[in-house]
C-alpha cells in the first residue's frame, strides 16, 4: 500500500446515481436531509474504530463517493445498536442506511477484505436459508474455518467452557417446514435486494 494517501476527493470519483439507489431502499429515503451535526458519530460506541465516522459516511454516500463508502470498515463495525437512529435530530434511519450499504457492498463484491464480519453475514444467511435456524457454535466454527484458523484455536478454550456448561449444540438445528421456507424465499433468493431495484431506475 502506498504511504501516500489521497486527502481530497475529485468530482470524477463520484457516482451520481449512488445516493438515489441507496435512497430507494425502504428506510433510507432521508439520506439527503442530513445536516451533518455529528450526533450519530458522537453516540456511536464504535465510531472511534471506524475509518470514516457515521457522519462522514452519510456525507460521502450522498455525494456519491461509492468506493470510499462501500470499502470502508465503518459499515461492518456498525453493530446495529440503533443509537444514532434514535438520536438523529432529522430522524434519519442511519442504521437502515448502514444495512443498505452492507447489502450493496456484498452484492457488488467490494466489501472490505480481511475482516470476518461480511463472511459471518453471508454464512448466517446461508445457514438460515438452508435450515431455518441458526446454531450459534456451528456458525462460529464455519466462520473461523473460512477466515482465521488461529482465531479458532484461541476460542478453543471458550468452546470447552460452553460444552462444560451445556451451552454447546452438537447437532445443527432446523425447522420442519424447510420446503415452505424455500418457497417463501424463492423469488428473491437471487439476491435482488432493493439496491438492485434502485439501479434499474
Amino acid at each position, binding site marked *: 500500500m502506498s504511504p501516500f494517501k489521497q486527502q481530497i476527493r475529485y468530482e470524477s470519483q463520484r457516482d451520481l446515481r449512488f445516493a438515489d439507489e441507496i435512497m430507494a431502499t*425502504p428506510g433510507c429515503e432521508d439520506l439527503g436531509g442530513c445536516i451533518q451535526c455529528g450526533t450519530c458519530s458522537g453516540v456511536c460506541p464504535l465510531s472511534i474504530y471506524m475509518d470514516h465516522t457515521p457522519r462522514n459516511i452519510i456525507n460521502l454516500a450522498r455525494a456519491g463517493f461509492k468506493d470510499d463508502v462501500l470499502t470502508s470498515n465503518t459499515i461492518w463495525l456498525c453493530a446495529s445498536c440503533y443509537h444514532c437512529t434514535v438520536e438523529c435530530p432529522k430522524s434519519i434511519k442511519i442504521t437502515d442506511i448502514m444495512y443498505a450499504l452492507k447489502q450493496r457492498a456484498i452484492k457488488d463484491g467490494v466489501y472490505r477484505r480481511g475482516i470476518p464480519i461480511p463472511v459471518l453475514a453471508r454464512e448466517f444467511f446461508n445457514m438460515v436459508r438452508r435450515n431455518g435456524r441458526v446454531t450459534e457454535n456451528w456458525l462460529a466454527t464455519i466462520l473461523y474455518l473460512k477466515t482465521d484458523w488461529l482465531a479458532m484455536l484461541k476460542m478453543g478454550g471458550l468452546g470447552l467452557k460452553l460444552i462444560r456448561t451445556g451451552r454447546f449444540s452438537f447437532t445443527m438445528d432446523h425447522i420442519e417446514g424447510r420446503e415452505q421456507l424455500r418457497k417463501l424465499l424463492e423469488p428473491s433468493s437471487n439476491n435482488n435486494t432493493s439496491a438492485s431495484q434502485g439501479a434499474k431506475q
Partner: protein
Amino acid sequence: MRYSYFPGCSLKGTGKAYEESLLPVLKALDIEVHELEDWNCCGATAYMAVDESAALKLSARNLAIAEKAKDEVLAPCSACYLVLRKTQKYIQEYPKVGGEVRQALQNAGLEYSGNVEVKHPLDILVNKVGLDAIKKRVKKPLTGLKVATYYGCQIVRPYSAFDNQARPVAMDKLMEALGATVVHYPLKTRCCGGSLTGTISDVGLRLVYILLKEARKNGADIITTLCPLCQFNLDAFQDQIKSRYDDVTTPVVYFTQLMGLAFGIPESELGLKRNIVPAEPALAGKV
C-alpha cells in the same frame, strides 16, 4: 394470560439458561405459554445485512404462524423482539414491502393480515402482571444484593414502546420489587458489540470490558440482563478480558434467574450452572 412463545435460536443454544428460568417464572405467575409452532430464525442483524427483503419475509413467516394461533407473541431475545416489530412496521408503512411479503407468504401457503402483538416478557411482567403482584410472590427477597441492570441496545431502541429509550427503568423497578439494590449504571443501554467479540476481538472485548468495569466501579455484585447475546458477551470472555486489560470479574445473569431465586424456585431449576463466571459467590448469603 396466554402467549405464543418465540424462543429464537439463542434461547435454544448459548442462552438456554434464559429459557430455563423464564418458563418457571411465568408459570409461577400463571402465565400460560406455548412455543410457537415450527418457528424460524427471526433474521437478526446478520441476515438484514445481506438481503433486506428476504429478512422481512423470513420474519413474517413467524408472524403468520402466530396469527393463526391467535395469540400475542412473547419474544424474550432483544434481536428477535426488534426484528419482529420492525417487520410489522415495514409491512405496514411501505406498501411495496407489504406487497412483496404477502406474495411470498402466499407462495408458501401462509397469510398475515397484521393482527399480531409482539411483546417482551419484561413489558408483560412490569406492566401487565404488575410490580405489586410480583412483590406478593417474593418468598426470598434479594436483600443486600447490589445489581447493575444492563438492558443493552435493541430492547429499547427504536421499535420498543414500553420504556424510556435513553434511561429505561422497567428492570430497575423489577429488581427493587425483588428486594435487590439497583446501582447507578449509566451504560445500561450501551451496545455490547454484538458479534464483534468473536470477529474483531480488539474492538469487541474492549466494549465489554468497559461495561463490566463500570458495573464494578459502581459497586455491583452482579449484572443482570435480558438479552442472550449481551449475557454471552459479558459472561464468556471475562478471562480474555482479564489477561488483556484488567480483572473485572462480575457474574452476569438473566433477570428471570433473579426473579426465580426470589420466588423460591430451586437454584438447580434456573440454569445457574450454565454461567461461565459462576454467580453463586455473589449470591451467597443473599438468596
